[in-house]
C-alpha cells in the first residue's frame, strides 16, 4: 500500500525554523495535519522522507518502544541530508555531533542514565528544596527592583532556571552567562537575535558548523571541571559525571562532554521557555492571576498546563529498526519518524478544548517531558523549580499586562519566547 503523502506546501514550513517564530502558524499546520494527515509522509526537498507523527496516542506508542524505534542510528532531531552528511564527516561516522542520553539506545542509554539518575529522583531533590526556594525568592526580589516594566524572558525567565541547574551541576555563577550563550547558539542557531554572532543563518550547513563550535567550546570549559572533580570530588552532578563509569569503564570522551552539554543546556532552556510562556499567558489573562492568588493550590496545575502549552521540545526523530504497523500504516525498517510533541499536546482526542489554557486539567496527560524510557531525567527538578518560583511570585504580583508584542524564538527544535515585555506591579 502506498503511504499517504502530505502536500509539500503544507508540511515544508514545519521544517523551517522561521515558522516557529509565529506560534499560530505552527499550530495551524499541525491542527490540519491531525485532521487530514494524522500519520503520513513528508517529502520535503533536501530531507529524507519522514513519517510525521501528530497524534498523542501514536507518539506514546512509538516512544515506549525504544527497541523498535531507535534514537542512535540517525539524527535525533530534524536534519537535512546535507546536515546529516556533515555530522558524519565531523564525527568520523556518527549521525550526531553530541552523544547525549537523548541520542542513545539500550542498553547504553540506561547505563549512562544511571550515572546521575539518583540525583534527580524526588527523594534526592527534597534535600535541594530549600536552596531552590531561596533562589526563586531572590529572583522574585530582583524582579521587584526592575521598576514597572521588564522583558520577563530575558530579565527573569532566562536567568532563574539557568542558576538552579548550574548550582546542581556545580558551576560557579560567574560562568552562567557563558552557559546561556552557548545554549542559545545551540538551540536557536537560526534565530537572528540569539544565534552565534557571525553565523550565516542562510547557509544550510550553518547548524552543523555551529553545533561543532558549541561542542568544542563546552569541551574546552568542561575539561577543566573534569580534572578538578577527579582530583577533588564534591557533592555535585559535575563530580558524578567526571567520575562516572559505564560497565566499569570511564565514559568515552564525546559521551562525557555531551552529558555536561545536555545538563547545561536542556537543563534550563526548556524550563526558561515554559516559565516565559507562563508569564505571557498570565499577562494576557488577568482573571487567571486573580484565580491563582485566590487559590494558590492551583499553581501546581498552572505549572502542568504551562508545560503542555509551551511544549518547548517541538520534535524528535526516531528510525524504525524493524517493520511496524502504526495507525494502520506500514512503517518499514529504516523509515524516519518525526514525532511532533507540540501537535500531540494539542490533540483533540486527548485534551478537551486543547487551545484553551486550563490549569484545572486533571489529569493533564501532556507529554511535554516525553514518554517511555527517554522521558526527561530532570522533569522532577523542573516542576519543583517552577512551582517554587510561582509560589513566590504570585502572592506579590498585583497586576501584569503585556507592554508590547511577545516574540517567539525561531527554532524548529527547542522553542520558546525570546521576548515577553510586561508592565507589572508587585509588592
Amino acid at each position, binding site marked *: 500500500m502506498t503511504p499517504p503523502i502530505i502536500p509539500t506546501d503544507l508540511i515544508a514550513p514545519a521544517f523551517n525554523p522561521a515558522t516557529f517564530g509565529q506560534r499560530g502558524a505552527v499550530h495551524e499546520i499541525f491542527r490540519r495535519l491531525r485532521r487530514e494527515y494524522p500519520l503520513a509522509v513528508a517529502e520535503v526537498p533536501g530531507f529524507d522522507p519522514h513519517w510525521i507523527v501528530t497524534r498523542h496516542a501514536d507518539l506514546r506508542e512509538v516512544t*515506549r518502544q525504544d527497541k523498535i524505534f531507535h534514537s542512535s542510528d540517525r539524527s535525533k532531531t530534524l536534519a537535512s541530508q546535507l546536515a546529516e552528511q556533515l555530522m558524519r564527516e565531523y564525527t568520523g561516522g556518527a549521525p550526531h555531533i553530541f552523544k547525549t542520553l537523548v541520542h542513545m539506545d539500550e542498553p547504553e542509554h540506561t547505563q549512562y542514565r544511571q550515572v546521575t539518575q539518583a540525583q534527580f529522583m524526588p527523594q534526592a531533590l527534597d534535600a535541594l528544596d530549600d536552596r531552590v526556594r531561596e533562589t526563586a525568592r531572590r529572583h522574585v526580589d530582583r524582579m521587584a527592583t526592575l521598576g514597572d516594566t521588564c522583558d520577563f524572558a530575558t530579565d527573569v525567565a532566562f536567568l532563574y532556571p539557568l542558576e538552579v541547574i548550574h548550582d546542581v551541576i556545580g558551576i560557579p555563577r560567574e560562568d552562567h552567562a557563558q552557559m546561556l550563550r552557548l545554549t542559545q547558539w545551540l538551540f536557536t542557531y537560526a534565530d537572528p537575535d540569539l544565534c552565534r554572532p557571525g553565523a550565516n543563518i542562510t547557509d544550510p550547513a550553518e547548524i552543523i558548523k555551529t553545533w561543532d563550535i558549541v561542542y568544542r567550546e563546552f569541551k574546552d570549559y568542561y575539561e577543566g571541571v573534569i580534572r578538578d572533580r577527579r582530583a577533588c570530588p564534591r557533592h555535585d552532578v559535575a563530580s558524578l559525571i567526571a567520575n562516572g563509569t559505564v560497565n566499569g569503564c570511564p565514559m568515552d570522551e564525546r559521551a562525557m562532554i555531551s552529558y555536561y552539554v545536555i545538563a547545561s543546556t536542556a537543563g534550563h532552556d526548556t524550563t526558561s521557555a515554559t516559565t516565559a510562556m507562563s508569564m505571557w499567558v498570565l499577562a494576557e489573562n488577568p482573571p487567571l492571576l486573580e484565580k491563582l492568588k485566590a487559590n494558590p493550590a492551583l499553581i501546581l496545575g498552572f505549572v502542568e498546563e504551562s508545560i503542555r502549552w509551551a511544549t518547548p521540545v517541538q520534535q524528535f526523530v526516531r528510525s524504525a529498526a524493524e517493520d511496524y504497523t502504526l495507525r494502520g500504516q506500514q512503517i518499514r525498517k529504516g523509515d524516519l519518524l518525526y514525532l511532533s510533541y507540540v501537535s500531540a499536546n494539542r490533540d483533540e482526542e486527548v485534551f478537551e478544548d486543547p487551545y484553551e489554557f486550563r490549569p484545572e486539567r486533571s489529569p493533564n496527560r501532556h507529554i511535554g517531558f516525553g514518554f*517511555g524510557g527517554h*522521558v526527561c531525567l530532570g522533569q522532577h527538578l523542573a516542576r519543583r523549580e517552577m512551582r517554587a518560583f510561582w509560589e513566590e511570585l504570585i502572592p506579590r504580583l498585583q497586576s501584569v499586562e503585556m507592554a508590547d508584542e511577545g516574540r517567539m524564538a525561531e527554532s524548529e527544535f527547542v522553542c520558546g519566547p525570546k521576548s515577553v515585555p510586561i508592565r507589572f506591579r508587585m509588592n
Partner: protein
Amino acid sequence: MRQPGQRRWQCNTCSEIYDEARGLPEYGIAAGTRFEDLPDDWECPMCGTPKSDFSLLDE
C-alpha cells in the same frame, strides 16, 4: 494520612512515586488502593513503564 501497612512504590524509569495512601484519584484510582490491587496491565501514567518495573520505596 498514611495508614499502617500502606507503602510507596517508585517507577524505575521516571522515578514517579505511587503512594498507596493517596492513590491516583485523577486517574480513577481511589486513595488507599494497594499496589498489588492495581490491574496487571496498569502502567506508570508519566512514562508508560509497566507495573512490574516499579520498586518498593519504603515500608
